[in-house]
């Protein structure tokens, strides 16, 4: 196996590992841009995963499964939307409750599907394009959902920055009182954003149960919903950075696995650094736990850096994030 093949392998693995985060992250991004913080991503992902899987088992069609996963995520988010937008419950508490509910509900629904093998989504090579060396295997030989994730990124970027509706969405997230005063229905817009976020979280779960590891198992998201939440902040609410961040998170994981599989080459590589830096780096690399702190620490650092400049953060962060809105309040 030569170097370029390994590199392509790593990059393809990165795209696959990052895809659920792209879906969930872009969905949450839209919700947060509208000023809604939904901490129930993990729960919505799980319900999407189990629903997508169940529908695939019952119909034999994984594409229907993917659609069902979106629908399930949307329904879950409607619970959140109804509670926070109409009954004005606290978003943080409601989101956490949604995750508790989703973990339980998915396990409950999934009881009769544990251990059922399915034929997951298969890669669809795009004719001609997939034959191009390097670029072909990297971009044009994937399952359908990965192409969908590319398209979703394009659509979300276009929507946010090039459309009037995107402008309204951002206005609502920025200052709901002002948006309301101009005459926009804050609640309606937020509900739509929440439902979009839910659908994408559901699809992210569906990607796991239909493509990544075609099976249903309790808690199979294993915390990816929380990483998606971190990702949106890390990306400073910019779609392109969500995409990059998702692949970065995925890439770090894949790369660290490749480093292990390569054996003790790393230990030797670390001797390049002067003492004691090389030794400290080794301690971190050798501890899976310390390595796992890096994405979170990076997010905290990025957040501090971008927030420091008040004007800069105002350009990106939705000012009304997490705040309830009531027209008469």
């Amino acid at each position, binding site marked *: *196996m030569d170097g370029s093949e390994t590199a392509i392998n790593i990059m393809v693995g990165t795209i696959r590992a990052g895809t659920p985060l792209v879906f969930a992250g872009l969905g949450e991004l839209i919700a947060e841009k509208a000023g809604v913080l939904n901490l129930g991503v993990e729960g919505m992902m799980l319900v999407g995963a189990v629903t997508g899987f169940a529908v695939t088992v019952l119909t*034999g069609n994984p594409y229907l499964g993917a659609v069902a996963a979106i629908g399930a995520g949307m329904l879950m988010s409607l619970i959140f939307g109804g509670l926070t937008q109409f009954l004005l419950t606290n978003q943080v508490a409601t989101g956490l409750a949604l995750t508790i509910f989703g973990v339980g509900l998915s396990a409950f629904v999934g009881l009769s599907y544990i251990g059922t093998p399915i034929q997951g989504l298969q890669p669809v090579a795009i004719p001609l394009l997939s034959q191009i060396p390097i670029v072909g295997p990297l971009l044009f030989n994937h399952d359908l959902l990965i192409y969908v994730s590319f398209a979703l990124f394009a659509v979300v970027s276009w929507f946010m920055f090039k459309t009037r509706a995107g402008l309204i969405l951002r206005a609502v997230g920025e200052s709901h009182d002002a948006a309301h005063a101009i005459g926009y229905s804050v609640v309606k817009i937020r509900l739509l954003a929440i439902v979009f976020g839910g659908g994408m979280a559901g699809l992210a779960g569906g990607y*796991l149960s239909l493509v990544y590891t075609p099976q249903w198992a309790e808690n199979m998201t*294993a915390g990816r919903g929380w990483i998606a939440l971190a990702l949106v902040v890390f990306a400073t609410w910019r779609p392109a950075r969500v995409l990059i961040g998702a692949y970065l998170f995925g890439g770090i994981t894949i790369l660290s696995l490749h480093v292990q*599989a390569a054996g003790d080459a790393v230990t030797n590589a670390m001797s390049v650094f002067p003492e004691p830096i090389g030794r400290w780096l080794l301690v971190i690399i050798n501890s*899976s736990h310390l390595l796992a702190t890096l994405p979170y620490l990076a997010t905290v650092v990025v957040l501090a850096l971008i927030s420091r400049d008040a004007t800069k953060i105002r350009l990106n962060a939705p000012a009304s994030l997490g705040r309830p809105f009531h027209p008469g309040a």
Partner: protein
Amino acid sequence: MTKLKSWRSLVAGLAVVAVAIAAGFGPARAADPLKVAFVYVSPIGDAGWTFQHDLARKAIEAKFGDKIKTSYVESVGEGPDAERVIRQLAADGNQLIFTTSFGYMNPTIKVAKQFPNVTFAHATGYKRSDNVSTYLARFYEGRYLAGIIAGKMTKSNTLGYVAAFPIPEVVRGINAFARGVRSVNPDAEVRVVWVSSWYDPGKEREAADTLIANGADVLMQHTDSTAVVQAAQDRKVYAIGYHSDMKKYGPKAHLTASTHNWNQFYIDKVQAVMDGTAKSDDTWGGIGAGMVELSPLGDMVPADVRKLVETASADIGSGKLHPFAGPVVDNKGKTRVPAGENISDGDLLGMQYYVEGVVGDLPK
């Protein structure tokens, strides 16, 4: 796999369960049944550590019928919750309680002190008391056999191992596997990837893909999900399951699985409690005791390899062959067990080094 079939089997299954329960509560029971309880660390699921314990629970139900009544609690956290659940089970009149995860060790000991008349058995731990036994299987014996198959089936001479945490239990399995491999194929090497989780299908899948990309054509796992076998099936390489038979997740990939069989141990324990002869002891049984088995070998395994495995299995069972018979040399060249000796159980329990044939450094 059609929808009707799965629904029908579900309904049928439920009906059977209902009839069984009805029968269990039916007329004329001679004496109060012996109540036996199980504490599980994860959901039962369809494969894995807990699933094997639950199979054995069903085996004792089948064996003793209405003379016993079993119950279980799943997904019990390894902290203060474990103590409460175990105590509750004891207080509810269970006379025999199996606690099936390492983290239940101290809670089991604590509760056992308060219930001297209840018999406890704790899996994988090292603390015992008057009414607490411990039990464990020599999983490494199955790993050694799996290594023989892997060493024979590999063409690239690179074997991949997806592992959870670098604790002795896992390291022992890796080493036994490597020694099995090297016993038939001195050129092959084992590459290990740690996923830092007992259960994370996504990450296990990534680890498997990574190993395959690095040339591995037979995968072994020490994690709980079936993702590794699935990955092997998709990428057209071989895999060896762990805990449970995972054939249906990758029929073309699944060479065999190194599985646990607690049935006989649990039956004996129940019988001993019924007879009043239960005593505190430590069981560490392997192939000889039937606690460790290989699931049926896949069709792709040729006859000569089957023969090799059968012989090795018989020799391990009879004690003629020890997977860690000296000389045991670690992968830095240091001799850990001299020639002519077998490794001691103590050294096995605390094993913290890689043997020859495993690539890389053991993480601390």
